[in-house]
């Protein structure tokens, strides 16, 4: 059989080779993914196992004997677990209320704002406002309640801030799943005499269970990988991400940091594997059916009012937290004097602290990275969904793998992998410390999200549409440009903006790689917040919020007027 099967495979290969653009694209992609995702991770392994005297566990023995590393592991897992649980619960509450209860316009609008805020806001915002509202000199704690010794730093600070940051992700995920539950399943249970609570417990919850697990793990991974919040509000409560950062920048122990990064990577990879291969499949299996018709929304006041009030209060609280930062940037003295509002911090930012350069550097680098990311992720999704070739599995796996790699781990990998050139040969050493490596990090960090949304967009498109173009005489390149890309224009646009926003708000990997030659806004925020100059940090953060929010608004406008998919969807 083997000899016979070869003809088909041979022919497939020949047909592929007859398409030079396609072959080149595939080769370039594979090279890029290998060099900038696989290689840095591999070098971490090599680094932490191969010391001066060959293969050994000595580095691991050393880091596992450090009490602060062991503490960091338990801290990280503890925070991740609690944040995962809390975010899933709050997310479920919001999702349930939105899908099952009739909301008025105002509350519905609040929900939408809440779901969008974490996407457009820089990573530090909630930590900053947490300190501002509830810290020692907090507006609420000290000035309203008169508590003088409240500390937000540490475990609870991180948990609260991360929960507020990540629950909207759970909310969006679970909302999608709840909408897919066929209402007649619940109606059937109700019809047979079950109370609302029974229906929820016997029908809704079991159907949702894999999805809840999924949401929990996604948040868990996000929490573990989070660098910015623990950095700002963790105080002496160190997590793995911050410990690794300090190991490099404080202790100059690069081998130790590499080994720690390997440990962190193993944890996230394990979670990711469970989430991706076990729970995602299960979620899909239980919730394939599309709702056959609209759900009868709850009108019952005894359920509706408490749920709506609870969620509305929570939503308003979250929105307040986000608004605090821009407001805080106008206070004359942080924590003491609130009036009259002043623009002096912005003056300082733009005069003494090179605000304009920071703005420009962040903006330009992200602006270069985002179209490349968006195009790359569309190409990868096209190849993964629509084409068949050797190496396809590799491309898909590696671009998804990047999703599970915490920024800190990637940062350490790049330091170890490129500071002396590839395998210390000096090859590509030139990019180390330049803007190019920052751009590459931006690309790698945003690639998985873009690819994922591209893949789901492309899966919706009937394969035969592209086949028909191919059949009419278009080559792969033509098919991609005239058929595929126009059909996923919306997804491409949103990928463009998402990667821009992700890049300009990135911190975890970047902070390890940036050189003084570049001033990035996020790094500035971190620096000023570390020094306790919260007003300046707030001013920088506000500028960042304006940029990202502007980008999202622009995209929405653009999609509204130029998106082709809209026209197609109007069936």
């Amino acid at each position, binding site marked *: 059989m083997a000899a016979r099967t070869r003809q088909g*495979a041979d022919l497939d290969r020949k047909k592929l080779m007859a398409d030079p653009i396609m072959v080149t694209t595939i080769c370039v992609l594979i090279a890029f993914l290998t060099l900038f995702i696989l290689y840095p991770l591999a070098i971490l392994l090599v680094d932490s196992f191969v010391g001066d005297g060959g293969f050994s566990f000595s580095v691991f023995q050393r880091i596992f004997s450090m009490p602060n590393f062991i503490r960091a592991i338990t801290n990280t897992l503890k925070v991740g677990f609690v944040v995962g649980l809390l975010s899933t619960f709050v997310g479920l509450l919001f999702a349930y209320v939105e899908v099952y209860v009739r909301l008025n316009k105002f509350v519905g609008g609040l929900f939408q704002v809440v779901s969008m805020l974490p996407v457009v806001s820089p990573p530090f915002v909630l930590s900053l406002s947490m300190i501002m509202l509830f810290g020692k000199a907090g507006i609420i704690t000290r000035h309203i309640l008169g508590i003088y010794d409240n500390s937000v730093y540490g475990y609870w600070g991180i948990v609260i801030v991360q929960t507020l940051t990540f629950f909207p992700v759970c909310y969006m995920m679970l909302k999608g799943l709840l909408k897919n539950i066929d209402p007649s399943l619940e109606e059937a249970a109700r019809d047979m005499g079950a109370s609302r609570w029974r229906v929820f417990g016997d029908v809704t919850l079991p159907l949702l269970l894999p999805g809840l697990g999924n949401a929990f793990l996604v948040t868990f991974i996000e929490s573990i990988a989070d660098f910015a919040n623990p950095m700002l509000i963790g105080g002496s409560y160190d997590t793995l991400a911050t410990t690794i950062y300090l190991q490099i920048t404080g202790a100059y122990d690069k081998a130790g940091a590499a080994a720690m990064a390997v440990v962190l990577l193993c944890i996230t990879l394990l979670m990711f594997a469970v989430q991706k291969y076990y729970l995602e499949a299960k979620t899909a299996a239980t919730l394939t059916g599309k709702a056959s018709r609209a759900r009868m929304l709850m009108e019952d006041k005894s359920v509706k009012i408490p749920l709506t009030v609870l969620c509305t209060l929570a939503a308003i609280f979250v929105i307040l937290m986000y608004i605090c930062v821009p407001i805080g940037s106008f206070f004359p003295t942080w924590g003491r004097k609130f009036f009259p509002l002043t623009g002096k911090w912005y003056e300082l930012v733009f005069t003494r602290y090179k605000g304009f350069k920071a703005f420009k550097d962040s903006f330009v680098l992200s602006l270069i990275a985002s179209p490349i990311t968006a195009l790359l992720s569309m190409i990868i999704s096209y190849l993964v969904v629509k084409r068949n070739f050797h190496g396809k599995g590799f491309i898909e796996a590696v671009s998804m793998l990047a999703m599970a790699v915490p920024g800190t781990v990637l940062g350490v990998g790049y330091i170890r992998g490129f500071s002396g050139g590839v395998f210390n040969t000096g090859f590509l050493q030139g990019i180390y410390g330049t803007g190019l490596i920052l751009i590459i990090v931006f690309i790698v960090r945003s690639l998985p999200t873009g690819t994922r949304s591209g893949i789901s967009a492309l899966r919706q498109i009937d394969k035969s549409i592209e*086949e*028909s173009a191919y059949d009419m*005489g278009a080559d792969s390149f033509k098919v991609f440009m005239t058929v595929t890309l126009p059909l996923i224009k919306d997804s491409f646009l949103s990928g463009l903006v998402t990667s821009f926003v992700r890049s300009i708000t990135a911190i975890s990997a970047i902070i390890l790689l940036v050189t003084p030659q570049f001033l990035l806004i996020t790094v500035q925020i971190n620096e000023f917040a570390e020094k306790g100059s919260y007003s300046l940090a707030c001013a920088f953060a506000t500028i960042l919020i304006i940029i990202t929010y502007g980008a999202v608004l622009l995209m929405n406008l653009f999609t509204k007027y130029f998106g*082709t998919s809209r026209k197609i969807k109007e069936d």
Partner: protein
Amino acid sequence: MGKVKKGVRLDHISKIYQDPKTGKDFYAVKDTSLEIEPGSFVTLLGPSGCGKTTTLRMIAGFESPDEGEIYIGDEAINELTPNKRDTAMVFQSYALLPHYNVFDNVAYGLKLRKMSKDEIRKRVLGMLKLVGLEGMEGRMTNQLSGGQQQRVALARALVIEPSVLLFDEPLSNLDAKLRVSMRTEIRRIQQEVGITAIYVTHDQSEAMALSDKIIIMEKGVVAQMGNPQEIYYHPKSEFVADFIGEANFLRGTMTGRDGNYVTLNIEGNSVKAVGDPGMEAGKNYTIVLRPEAASLADQGGLPCTVVLSCFMGSYQNYHVMVGDTLVKLEEHNPKNKRIYNVGEKCCLVFEPDSVHVLES
């Protein structure tokens, strides 16, 4: 169209797939050789999973054969990608480009061939006229009905003047009435253009209505090839007989021969049927009896009991039991005929020339 018509030849084609569950290889198409005459309309007919679509996709170039060679005219095309093959396909889902209007959809292939704008315009409008879509060129495809979308798909395939036109179950998404009128339309256009057409379907009436030649496939191999009459009247197997039209099977043993006719013993009764010269007495045979070829009478033929009697307007539908065998028959124009009721005992009769005998 002044092009030389080309036929299609499949030379010992096989396609092997891996079963995703068991990981075992199996033949989706096995050692299939076909010769399709230039300008003829050929249907690949069979149940789902019989390999008909795979065969079509191999001709189009979307799949590569694991054995054998495919020719269009005299040219071997195995190594050509779909865009280099002189074929055009009409897809089951129409596969119109949703971001283009009707005109641009039909013009797509011509633009790729770098024709002048005027020429493209002339050809596209001419083609839209041929398929009955005059004046619709500015519409978006989602403003069209299913039948109209199918016409666009057909126009788009025809306009590039391919040597071979391929149809992948193009009517299966349409409602029953439209399907009937569209198939007449497809046949008319194919005759008018004189193009070689290969049509995949699982609907036997479609195959009958359209084809010069029907190829019935079963489990990856060709079960029978022939014009509609041959296939209907002289099926080579029970599978073919059952798949094309309705068929009853009466099993018996041959007892004697009388010229072109043989006598068979069925459930203890002697029955006469037309027989091949190669048939031997003592062997078991099966009579293929079409519902319209049989009728009920008070005497003669095979004794039977009526288990269903149902008035259908143009015919009376009967189910009768001949021993343990259920036979379905249709008595046409029942108005002035004797109607048998459920439970009545009567006789199943048919002309010896109107049946076909198979080896069991």
